[in-house]
């Protein structure tokens, strides 16, 4: 895990990085594009009994069983409302199996260079716990909360 963080930091300091900007409620979040395997439309999800509440279940992505997590529930936001814009982003971390996360909308891909990314400070963590953040990106007028995707998907049992 440390390795990954290190790599992320190095990259942040250097050239611009690509982020997929997604919307959750009224906030914008950025996901490092290198983790994104695929973006699919909302599809049938099979509920898993007695799983962690933020796991909506599993889905079938071309013959693979992929667990699907609700980012909204994970971040203690309102439960998802499925609309035409709802998407599942399939994340494929380097050494782990794929996982899907549900977002309200996928907006665009932005390139942020090191200068427009700020390290998160404690005060930024109104809704989202600080551990899930890797920084705040400035793009145009808006701010994008950059997710530390590895810590979002791997969590100790203490919620």
């Amino acid at each position, binding site marked *: 895990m440390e390795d990954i963080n290190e790599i992320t930091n190095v990259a942040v300091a250097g050239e611009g990085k690509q982020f997929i900007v997604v919307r959750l409620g009224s906030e914008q979040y950025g996901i490092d594009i290198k983790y994104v395997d695929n973006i699919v439309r909302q599809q*049938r999800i099979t509920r*898993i009994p*007695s799983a*962690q509440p933020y796991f909506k279940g*599993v889905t079938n992505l071309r013959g693979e069983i992929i*667990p699907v997590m609700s980012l909204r529930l994970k971040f203690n936001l309102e439960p998802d409302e499925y609309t035409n814009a709802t998407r599942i982003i399939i994340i494929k971390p380097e050494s782990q199996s794929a996982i899907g996360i549900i977002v309200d909308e996928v907006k665009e891909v932005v390139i942020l260079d090191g200068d427009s990314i700020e390290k998160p400070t404690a005060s930024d963590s109104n809704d989202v716990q600080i551990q899930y953040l890797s920084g705040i990106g400035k793009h145009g007028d808006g701010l994008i909360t950059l997710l530390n995707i590895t810590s979002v998907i791997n969590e100790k*049992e203490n919620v």
Partner: protein
Amino acid sequence: MDVSQYLEIFIDETKEHLQTLSDQFMVIEQEPENMDSINEIFRAAHSLKGMAGTMGFKRMQRLTHDMENVFQEIRSGNMTVQPELVDVLFRGLDALEAYLAEILETANEGTEENEEIINTLNSIAEKATGKSGGAKAEPKPEEAAKAAESPASSGGAKYQEIKITEYEQGTFEKAKKENQNIYGITVYLEESCILKAARAFLVFKALEEIGEVIKSVPSVQDIEDEKFELDFSLVYFTEESMETVKAAIESVSEIKEAIVGPFEAEAPKEEKTEEKPAETQEKAQPKQPEKAAAAVQTAPKKEKAPAQKAPAQKSKPTVGRTVRVDIEKLDVLMNLVSELIIAKNGLVSMNSMDESRTDSAGFNEQIEYLESVTTSLHESVMKVRMVPIESVVNRFPRMIRDLNKKLGKKMELHMSGEETELDRTVIDEIGDPLQHLLRNSADHGLEPNEERVRLGKDEIGHIYLNAYQDGNNVNIEVRDDGAGIDIEKVKNKAIEKGTITPEQAETMSDKEVIDLLFKPSFSTAEKITDVSGRGVGLDVVKTKIEGLGGNIECKTELGEGSCFTIHLPLTLAIIQALMVELGSEKYAIPLGSIQAIEDVAFEDVKHVQTKEVINLRGSVIPLIRLDQILEVDPGDFHPESLTVVIVQKGDKQAGLVVDNLIGQQEIVIKSIGDYIHCSKLISGATILGDGEVALILEVNTLV
């Protein structure tokens, strides 16, 4: 001549040879005169030696060489097989296995010399034959002494004689501009080196990873053709320090010595060449070249350094898991794939035919054909994955032999059904649990010999390992004719440990008491031995086996012995399952655990201690409301009676209440990954024909 590509073959074959050795050692221990075995051992040791040599595993080669020597003597009648010899041989075998394990991990044989085993081997041979067979085992001190002389006197540095042509002069200039060090290297091979060209090649390869060989004497062509004595010299450009270069060369086995020094091409340029002393290099080690005697000693340790720098950096050179497949099985697969293509073409042509003629009969025919092909394809692929259990159990006779000596108990292992086949993934995992059970039997199960005599039993204890196929399961039994499990003792122990209360103990059935043994940290062994009884025991076995989708049972008779039976599914990947419906959700129940399906009227459901039970043909079966356990949204479903699926786990039964039965189906088991924690109720998931995911219920946790 890159040998690394042969590593997998080497490992496979070495395993085979080691197994042969182990088997035959066991034979000659019993029948020291058995000439066939002795010949067999000789051949195996010889092939091992050759292979290890080719691959550059020098230490391994030396050990097998000495084993081979001993058997050469035995073969020619100069000595006989002694019990102590067999002991040493077994130790040698262990050492070889250790080398192999190291090679598997790191592609390197490690640094263990096993000097002691070699010396013992040779001294036995010497004693028996009166000849000095030990000469070979002691090349090291000499070697060290020789090595000590040469670099100090620098007499061996033949590279200084290398002449440089005008053309090469140009490359020198260039190298200097790039701030590269220019070294002269002279490499001495060991006298005993068999494949000189291969060694030289390895040296070149090692060097070229960290620099550039400019010139060699004799020429590369001559070296490849083995047209050289025991040394060759090189001119070499690199950015590395002398020490690094030296270590890289000495990491190749059978190199007696490598002398590395700055190479002075022409007198006027010497200043520049020496401008960059090795010490400035970050990797420079505090080792002085004068300490040549130590150099030989430290060389093996340093082996790791270049190995990490060069190939290990790209990827860990561990060896992939392979299955050896009978060529016939592959042919069958190939044929099936061709048929699959034909079936596909049939469908394609049907599609392109005139539309009016597209009748559903022809279409169905094609579908049926396709179905039969996929079924056979599945079967064949499964067969390819099946491995006889022999590959796991054949190490046990050896283990029991060792335990025999260690525990001072006479015992025999009887095995049957080694040819029973299991899925490769199961085979890989089943070894440790079985070993554990066998050790348990040997250590705790069997009484000491005197005790056995006193009880009127056969003095020699017997342990049985039987494997056999039973329907869709494979059963493996570990049975002994020892003391059996003392139920009372287990109860007392459990009370003492606070696992159960005395009141509970009163009401517990024998079976339940035995189940206590499978609870974590519960060991009844009164004395903790090296062999077993550290309290991590049967629970680990149980967890492992359940992880493989199997289960374990224990039957015991005080004074008669105990029997542990492992039930394993034949294959893990595809099972027959009953699909059921709960609310709007679909679940799969493995057919293997289903006993019956019953329609039960509401009034037949009785309550015992607030639990729902049914009385089915005389036996009382608890009901499990799946919809409650799985938190299914009930919906408005009002059946007239309960549909109950009776499942079985060991001797226990339970009735699972479901809303609807869908039918039997062959399902492919897929894992749901580690992200979701779901209290083991779900063993996996499968994808249904319509693309929907259905969960597979884990009956073992439910019951």
